[in-house]
C-alpha cells in the first residue's frame, strides 16, 4: 500500500482510540442536548458512523463529532415535535442544583440550548456552531445570549 492509499483510509485503531477517549464527553454533550441517555447513545453512535468513512479528511474530530451530535439532536427534537406521545427517559443527574439547571436547560428552545451547550460546555466557536445548527453566526450569538439569560433567571432568580 502506498503512502497516499494509507492516508486515504481511516485507521481503525485511530477511530477506536477516538471513540474510547471521546465517548464520555460526547455522551455528556448529547445528554445535555436531548436529556436522555438512551438517545444520547444513539447520537454518539451515529456521529461516529457518519465520521468513519471520511475520518482522514476530518481536521478536528472533536469539533466534527460534537457538531454531528448537535445536528442529530436537532432531528430528534423535530421527531419529538411530530410525535409528542413518545416517552423520553430522563438522564440521571447527581445533585439537585444540577438537576434544576438541567431541567431549565431542557426547557430552552432547542437552538438556544444547543448554542449554549456547544459554546460553554464543548467550547466550539461561532462558525462551527452555526454550521452544526444550520444558521448564521449572528443567530448563534443571539441564541447564546437569550439562552444564557433565561437560564440565569430560572436557576438564580
Amino acid at each position, binding site marked *: 500500500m502506498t503512502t497516499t492509499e494509507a492516508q486515504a483510509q481511516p485507521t481503525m485503531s485511530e*477511530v477506536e482510540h477516538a471513540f474510547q477517549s471521546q465517548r464520555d464527553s460526547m455522551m455528556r454533550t448529547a445528554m445535555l442536548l436531548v436529556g436522555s441517555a438512551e438517545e444520547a447513545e444513539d447520537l454518539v453512535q451515529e456521529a*461516529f458512523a457518519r465520521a468513519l468513512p471520511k475520518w482522514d479528511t476530518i481536521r478536528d474530530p472533536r469539533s466534527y463529532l460534537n457538531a454531528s451530535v448537535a445536528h442529530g439532536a436537532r432531528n430528534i427534537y423535530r421527531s419529538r415535535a411530530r410525535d409528542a406521545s413518545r416517552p423520553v427517559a430522563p438522564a*440521571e443527574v447527581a445533585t439537585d442544583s444540577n438537576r434544576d*439547571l438541567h431541567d431549565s436547560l431542557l426547557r430552552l428552545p432547542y437552538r438556544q440550548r444547543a448554542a449554549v451547550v456547544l*459554546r460553554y460546555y464543548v467550547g466550539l466557536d461561532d462558525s462551527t456552531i452555526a454550521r452544526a445548527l444550520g444558521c448564521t453566526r449572528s443567530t448563534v450569538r443571539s441564541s447564546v*445570549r437569550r439562552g444564557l439569560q433565561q*437560564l440565569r433567571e430560572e436557576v438564580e432568580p
Partner: protein
Amino acid sequence: MSKINESDAEWAAKRLGDLGASLEIPPPGGDDHLGNYTTEVIESHRRRRVLVGVAAMAVVVLGVGAFLAGRTSSTPVKVASNPGAQATTTPSTPTASELAQQAQDNAWKPQLPLASRKAVYEAQLAWAQCLRSNGFADVTDPDPNFGDGNTPAMHVGIQSFSNSADTDAQTYARAEAACTVEHQTMLDAVKAATSK
C-alpha cells in the same frame, strides 16, 4: 439585548461543566451495546472496503479477460448454413468437412459466367417477391453482384425468424410451400450455375 459579560460566560462554563460532570453516563456497553455497535460499524466499514476492492479487482480481471478474448477471437460472422438466419455467432474451429463444404459453396462464384449469375439473381428476386406477396414481409433482396462470398440461398433470407433453427426451418418450409415454383426455379438456377 445586552452583550454577554464575562461573569455570565464564566457562570455558564462552570455550571454547565458541573452539570455535565454530574450526569451519569451509562458504562460503555453496560449491556455491551455501544461497544458492539462501534465494532459493528468498523467491521461494516472494513467489509465494505473489502467488497469494493474485490469488485474493483473483478472488473479489472473481467476487462483484461474481455480484452484478451477480443484479441484472440475473430470477428463474428453471419451464419451461412441456414437460409433464413441473420444471427451472428462466434465461429468454432471448422472441421475438415465443413471447410470442404465452404470451399465448394464459394468456388463457383469467381468462375460463374455473367449469364448464370443473372439467372440466379432473377430467380432469387422472383422468390423474394413471391415471399413478400405471401405475407413474408421481412425478406431481403438478393445481391445482384454475388460478390460477397455468400452462397446463393443466403441472398434471400427471412430475417425475422432467425432466433431459432426450428422456427427457421418451419418458416422456410411454409415459404417453400407458398412459393413452390419460384423456390424450385431458384434452386435449379443455383444448381445450374454451380455445376458448371
